[in-house]
């Protein structure tokens, strides 16, 4: 049975090819026949966004447990296989999606695809393995409860998003939710969200696309999707934040305070996304952390790191400025960052800032897709967000089209200083102020 569609597009990364199996599984690839290795990434269109408050951590546990035993490969057998082939196998569970990530020698590609198909299609979630993996996750929860960066972000999310919102929750879960999960919950989650018509697989490296697609079809082609429509993706909207808040968490014995300042913004799929992404680049990424890095680190010497980021995913994803400072400098750092956010909403970025941002976004494309694993990730994002196979070619045009006024407008609309949530986690003394 041949794949039902075959498309191709030339790009700076080489020729990108795409096929879709009759069951809906999309295959994307780029040949790099000079390499002896292959990067493979299998994406299920489900992640922590499909958790609930009561099952926080479930999507991640399912993702991890995929590697812990399936119908044809027990945990011991798959560990021996991957280690024996020098192949790496890991999972990357995010809010929008779950990826199984494989790196292997090209000669071993067929065996790894057979393994991936078994794990994705027929996981067994063995009870003993489940208990062990749950214990490791609980240990991770305990460890991150002492990590100032993690605690600050959790505090930010809890304050910035309404109860029940998927972006309010963490991916890892909480001790009590992990404890309450049962093996049947994992089985039900897998049955509901893992299906070939809500998955895509990317292959980049030393194998021809035709050979790769045939091997993938052999392993996945007879997996029939359920009759019901695939579950919805994305996340519900939230009201534009108009009142900010400040929360603080004291962690004894820490040397540094970590701060998150941010608010719910917009994600992929929103027409203004690329403009906001460009504004974010100028504000907190370009060069050594953009304007924030310049103000906090270069001009004031307050911190080793100070940057901003826009979460992946669709809907009201988090925009966050993050900084780690000496506890005595928390208020100075907060004031400096808030002032920079306000400035970005009051006056247009300078012409040379926008020119630098455009040049960076265009030029860095080559670097981002140079590695096989980087390109595999890019291909899955192209598929998941329906960006079009020519996206890598169109992208420079997209970022060249923005004017400074458009960036000012998007900054005003989405980075409102009055709606900022500030979360501080650090030692005694770093967290004295509890409101502003």
């Amino acid at each position, binding site marked *: 049975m041949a794949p039902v569609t075959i498309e191709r597009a030339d790009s700076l*990364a080489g020729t990108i090819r795409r096929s879709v199996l009759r069951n809906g599984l999309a295959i994307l690839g780029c040949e*790099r026949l*000079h390499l*002896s*290795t292959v990067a493979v990434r299998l994406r299920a269109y489900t992640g922590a966004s499909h958790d609930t408050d009561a099952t926080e951590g479930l999507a991640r546990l399912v993702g991890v447990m995929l*590697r812990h035993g399936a119908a044809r490969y027990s945990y*011991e057998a798959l*560990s*021996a296989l*991957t*280690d*024996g082939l020098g*192949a*790496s*196998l*890991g999972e990357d569970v995010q809010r929008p999606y779950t990826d199984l*990530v494989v*790196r292997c*020698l090209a000669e071993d590609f067929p065996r790894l695809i057979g393994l991936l198909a078994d794990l994705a299609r027929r996981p067994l979630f063995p009870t003993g393995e489940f*208990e*062990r993996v749950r*214990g*490791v996750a*609980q*240990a991770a929860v305990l*460890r991150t409860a*002492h*990590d*100032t960066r993690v605690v600050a972000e959790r505090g930010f999310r809890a304050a910035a998003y309404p109860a029940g919102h998927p972006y309010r929750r963490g991916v890892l879960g909480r001790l009590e939710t992990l404890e309450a999960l049962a093996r049947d919950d994992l089985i039900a989650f897998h049955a509901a969200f893992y299906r070939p018509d809500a998955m895509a697989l990317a292959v980049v490296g030393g194998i021809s696309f035709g050979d790769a697609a045939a091997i993938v079809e052999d392993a996945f082609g007879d997996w029939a999707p359920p009759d019901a429509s695939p579950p919805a993706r994305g996340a519900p909207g939230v009201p534009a934040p108009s009142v900010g808040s400040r929360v603080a968490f004291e962690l*004894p*014995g*820490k*040397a*540094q305070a*970590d701060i998150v300042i941010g608010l719910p913004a917009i994600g992929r799929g929103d027409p203004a996304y690329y403009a906001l992404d460009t504004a974010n680049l100028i504000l907190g990424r*370009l*060069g*050594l952390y953009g304007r924030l890095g310049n103000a906090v*680190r*270069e*001009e004031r*010497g*307050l*911190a*080793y*790191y100070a940057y901003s980021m826009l979460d992946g995913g669709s809907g009201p994803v988090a925009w966050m400025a993050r900084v*780690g*400072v*000496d506890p005595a400098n928390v208020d100075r750092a907060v004031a400096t960052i808030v002032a920079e956010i306000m400035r970005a909403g009051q006056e247009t970025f300078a012409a040379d800032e926008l*020119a*630098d941002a455009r*040049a*960076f976004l265009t*030029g*860095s*494309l*080559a*670097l981002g897709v*140079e*590695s096989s694993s980087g390109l595999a990730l890019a291909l899955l994002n192209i598929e998941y967000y329906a960006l079009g196979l020519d996206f890598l070619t169109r992208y420079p045009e997209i970022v060249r089209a923005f004017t400074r006024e458009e960036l000012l407008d998007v900054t005003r609309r989405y980075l409102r200083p009055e709606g900022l949530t500030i979360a501080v986690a650090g030692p005694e003394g770093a967290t004295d102020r509890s409101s502003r």
Partner: protein
Amino acid sequence: MTSTPDAGAARGATRHTILDNGLAIVSRELHGAPVVSFWIWYRVGARNETPGLTGVSHWVEHMLFKGTPTLPSGAVHRLVSRHGGALNGFTSLDFTTYFETLPSARLDVAIGIEADRMINARFDAAEVESERTVILSEKQGGENHPATHLREAVVAVAMRAHPYRQGVIGYECDLRAIARDDLLQHYGAYYSPRNATIVVAGDFETGDLLERLRAAFGGLPAGPLPPTVHAVEPAQEGERRAIVRRPGPLPLLLVAFHAPGAAHADAAALLVLDAVLSGAGSMGLGGGSGALGAASRLHRRLVDAALASSATSSYSRTRDPYLFTVSVALRQEVVPADVEQVVLEELERLRDDLVPDDELARAKKGLRAQLAYASENAADVAYWLGSLAVLDALELDATFAARLAAVTADDLRRAARAYFGERNRTVGWFLPEGSDGNGGGQVAPASRASR
């Protein structure tokens, strides 16, 4: 200028060139993507630091981003970003390195930056003071993690004479006292063509590259001979222990053994031992991805047995003898002494028994795969070549795979017996303050399995 293809040329043309001023150049063409990665390595790091000036190499690294007369502070980042590139610098025990990875048409940007700041860094007094707090903040960030405290304690206990014991970031008292003149003196002593190696990998033509490099760097004075490091770590004569008690979530174990440097004949066997214990380690820049090592001995005995969240070993490729380590993050409600017992048993087993053929083959295949993964990208290739060159072990590039393939089970047992003994061991524990290690009992040395 002398220029010779090395023994690896037949499989990918690594070229080693030395300019008349002593500047070494290592280059490898890769035409898979229109990208070039340019690195410059200086033979200076914690190894070259003296008490009172710990952390000075790392501070100098920071100052090389703070401007020259022609490229003011911040300009290097802007310049590279403007062309869509990535850049960074980092300092290690043995070296300080800077890189720019750029679209290949922009190679001259990297050459210009590095030729300029090799000799023209300004060390502006106000910038020096501003960077002092930045570095203290970087140090504080590390100290937020229990593993940092444990590692510093174990290394300082295991090593008594060699500057490696001081670590890279430096002691806080030194970071508060180091003056601009100290930085300038360090810069003048170590930043020169004679003490540097340029590594370039990516989409370029070698003849053209060498011409550009000769034009940019060939006229620079060779510079002084860097001071020789005489320190030799004396043999350890019995187990040492370090315990760190601080607020924290769960116990951590770090066991360290003195191990030889990267150019030593036993280095290959130690890498294979590392792979047997916890999976083949990454040879590339960014570390591996995924769970290589799930079938390894430590993973099976500790993670699969629900005693630990993670269990890894590591052999550091350094110029002088340093440490082979085993690190374990304990699960909740696990008795620390039980975990230590398992670790020592596994190390003892390597001293007693030959590693079975299938397990040896698995470890070697993992290392072969890691070598292949580290050959995919320009930056990884440049990092690999540079990390060998700066240790004066570039010839390993051509022979590394063969050396790994030639390791036998007898080699592993001999190396384990040479290095994994009780006399050569330091055991360190991080114990959450206010607890006895979450297991209910005092942490006592595990019953000794080792001789």
